[in-house]
C-alpha cells in the first residue's frame, strides 16, 4: 500500500472547499427538516382524519424510499415541470424533506411525553390553543427532543455525500474530482473518511452528554 503525503497536501485546499459545502448543506437541510418535521407532527394531531391520513401516507412513503432516488426525482423531474433550482438547492430540499419524516416522529414522541396535567392546567387557566402550544407544550416537548434531533443531524451529515450524485461538489464530490484528475484515489477518499469520523464521533458524544442533561 502506497501512501503519498504530497497528494494529501495537494488535496487539502479542495477538501476545505468541500467541507464548507457539506456544512452548508447540513445546516440548511437541518433547518428545513426541523421546521417541516414540526409541521408534519402538528398536522398528524389534526382532528380530521382527512388531514392525518394523507400526511401519514406521504411521510411514510418518503421515509421508506431511498434518498438517492428522491434526489434524482427532484433533480430530473422538477425541470420537466419548469421548476429549476440549482443542484445545491435541490439537494438541500431533498435532504430536509427526507429527514423531516424522521424528525416528525421525534416531535411526536416529545409532544406525547408532556404530562397530561400540563394540558389540563392550560385548559383550567383558559389559555387559548395557540398559547397552550407556544408557551406550555412545545417548550417542554422540544427540550426533551434536542438530543434525538441532534442524532438525526449526525445521520444527515453522513447522507450529505449523496449530493455528489447530482453534481454538488461536497467533500466526496471534491475527492472524486481530485482522484479522477490525478489518478490517486487512496489519499482523498481516506482523508474525507477520517474527516467524517472526526466530526461525527465528537458530535455523538456531545449528544449523549446532552441526553443526560436534558432528558430526565
Amino acid at each position: 500500500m502506497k501512501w503519498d503525503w504530497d497528494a494529501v497536501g495537494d488535496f487539502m485546499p479542495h477538501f476545505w472547499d468541500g467541507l464548507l459545502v457539506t456544512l452548508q448543506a447540513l445546516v440548511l437541510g437541518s433547518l428545513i427538516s426541523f421546521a417541516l418535521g414540526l409541521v408534519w407532527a402538528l398536522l398528524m394531531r389534526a382532528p380530521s382524519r382527512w388531514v392525518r391520513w394523507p400526511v401519514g401516507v406521504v411521510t411514510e412513503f418518503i421515509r421508506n424510499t431511498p434518498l438517492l432516488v428522491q434526489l434524482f426525482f427532484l433533480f430530473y423531474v422538477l425541470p420537466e415541470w419548469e421548476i429549476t433550482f440549482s443542484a445545491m438547492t435541490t439537494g438541500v430540499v431533498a435532504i430536509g424533506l427526507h429527514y423531516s419524516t424522521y424528525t416528525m416522529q421525534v416531535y411526536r414522541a416529545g409532544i406525547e411525553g408532556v404530562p397530561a396535567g400540563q394540558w389540563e392546567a392550560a385548559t383550567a387557566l383558559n389559555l387559548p390553543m395557540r398559547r397552550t402550544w407556544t408557551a406550555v407544550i412545545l417548550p417542554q416537548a422540544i427540550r426533551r427532543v434536542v438530543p434525538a434531533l441532534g442524532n438525526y443531524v449526525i445521520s444527515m451529515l453522513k447522507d450529505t455525500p449523496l449530493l455528489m450524485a447530482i453534481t454538488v461538489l461536497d467533500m466526496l464530490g471534491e475527492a472524486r474530482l481530485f482522484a479522477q484528475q490525478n489518478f490517486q484515489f487512496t489519499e482523498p477518499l481516506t482523508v474525507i473518511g477520517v474527516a467524517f469520523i472526526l466530526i461525527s464521533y465528537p458530535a455523538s458524544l456531545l449528544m449523549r452528554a446532552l441526553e443526560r442533561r436534558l432528558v430526565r
Partner: protein
Amino acid sequence: MTSGLWELVLKGIWITVQLLFFSALLGGVVSFVVGIARTHRLWIVRFLAGFYTEVFRGTSALIMIFWVFFVLPPAFGWQLVPMWAGTLALGLTYGAYGSEIVRGALNSVDPAQREGGIALSFTPMQRMRLILLPQAVPEMIPPFSNLLVELLKGTALVSIMGMGDLAFSGNLVRLALQESAEIYTYILLIYFVIAFLLTRIMRGLEKRLKAGIGKAPERRGKLAMPRPETTGVGAGAGGGA
C-alpha cells in the same frame, strides 16, 4: 414504457434483492459478533468492538462504498466483483449499527437472569446461548426491522458505482425515454413495496419469537401496518427513537 425497459427494471429489482439479502446476512453476522463482543468481560475485546462500531458508524456508507471499490483494489492487489464489494461495504457499515441493537438488547435482559445462570454453573457460552439470547433476540426484532429498511435504502447507493440495481435501471430508462417523472415514480413505488414486505415479514417473526417467550409484540402506531390484536401484560419496552 416498452417491455424491454420493464425487463431492465426487473433485472434491477433482482440485483437489489440479491444485494439486500447478502448484505443483510453479513450485517447480521457482524451485528451479533461485535454486539456480543461489546458485552465481553475483557476490556480489550470490548474496546476493539467499540472501536469498530465507532469507525464504521462514523463514516458515511457511500464513502465506505467508494473506499471498497477504489482504495482496496490497488492497496491489496485484488479486485472484488461489484456484488461482493457492495455487500462488504454495506454489511460492515450496517453491521456496526446492528451491533448497537444487539448490545442494547443484551444489556436490557434482567441481570437476575445472568446471575441465575451463574448460580446454576452454566458456562459463559451456555449462558449466552440458552439464557440471554433467547430473551434478547425478540426485543431486537423491531429495531432490526427499521435497520433492514435503512439497508434497503442504502443498497441504492451502489448505483453510483455503476452496479445495475433498481436505482440504476431507473437512470437507464430515463436516458432511454428522455422523460423522468414516470420511471422515478415507479422506482420509488417499487422500493416502498419492498420495504413494506420487509416490515411485514419482520412483524411476523417478532410475533412468533415473542410468543415463544410468552410476550405480546410491541405496539406501534404505524400507518399501513396491522395493529397487534392484544396489548397483553408487560408488552415490550416502549419503542426508543
